């Protein structure tokens, strides 16, 4: 994605955040949305600062591009996602049984559905990627 497009998206998040926070201050929306507005302002502002630095500072640009395209970083990111997914399934599988034993059926069901959802997504991704490669 081009840097200009990314800046526009960050400006959009910033403006959305300001609007949500403003609505929160005037009691138009509840604290959930005003909190989200605050978070969007933070994210948007940080991203804009980063993009401006990226455009103006060639050394920083080179560093960012190397970090973004570095194959070891990509490999680590992929492994981290794989581990996260595996841990999520394991923790929720244990949670399903543990909550059932503790008599909390709602949380047990939530854990079981989460595991099912991740496994369905995994198989869909597997089938799609198998066709691609």
């Amino acid at each position, binding site marked *: 994605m081009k840097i200009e497009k990314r800046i526009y998206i960050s400006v959009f998040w910033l403006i959305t955040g300001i609007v949500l926070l403003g609505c929160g201050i005037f009691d138009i929306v509840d604290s959930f949305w005003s909190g989200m507005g605050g978070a969007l302002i933070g994210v948007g502002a940080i991203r804009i600062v980063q993009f401006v630095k990226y455009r103006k500072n060639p050394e920083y640009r080179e560093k960012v591009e*190397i970090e973004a395209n570095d*194959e*070891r970083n990509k490999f680590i990111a992929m492994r981290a996602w794989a581990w996260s997914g595996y841990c999520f399934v394991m923790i929720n599988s244990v949670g399903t049984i543990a909550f059932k034993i503790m008599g909390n059926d709602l949380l047990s069901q939530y854990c079981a559905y989460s595991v099912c959802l991740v496994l369905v997504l995994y198989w869909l991704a597997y089938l799609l990627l198998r066709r691609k490669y």
Partner: protein
Amino acid sequence: MKNRIEEIRKEKGIKQEDFAKLMGVSRQTISSLETGKYNPSIFLAYKIAKYFEMTIEEVFIFDEEI
């Protein structure tokens, strides 16, 4: 997979950081390659071998046991 990157790089008198820049990767990647913690993609292996004016087999030692 073992490799001779560190040995050849030092022979040529190139710093890790400069070599990383030339290969378009981070210094940590070069460090991980040299210590054998990370195996490169075929593209990076080719790029490294080409830079050293060697074949991939001369730089990377294929160990069947691994």
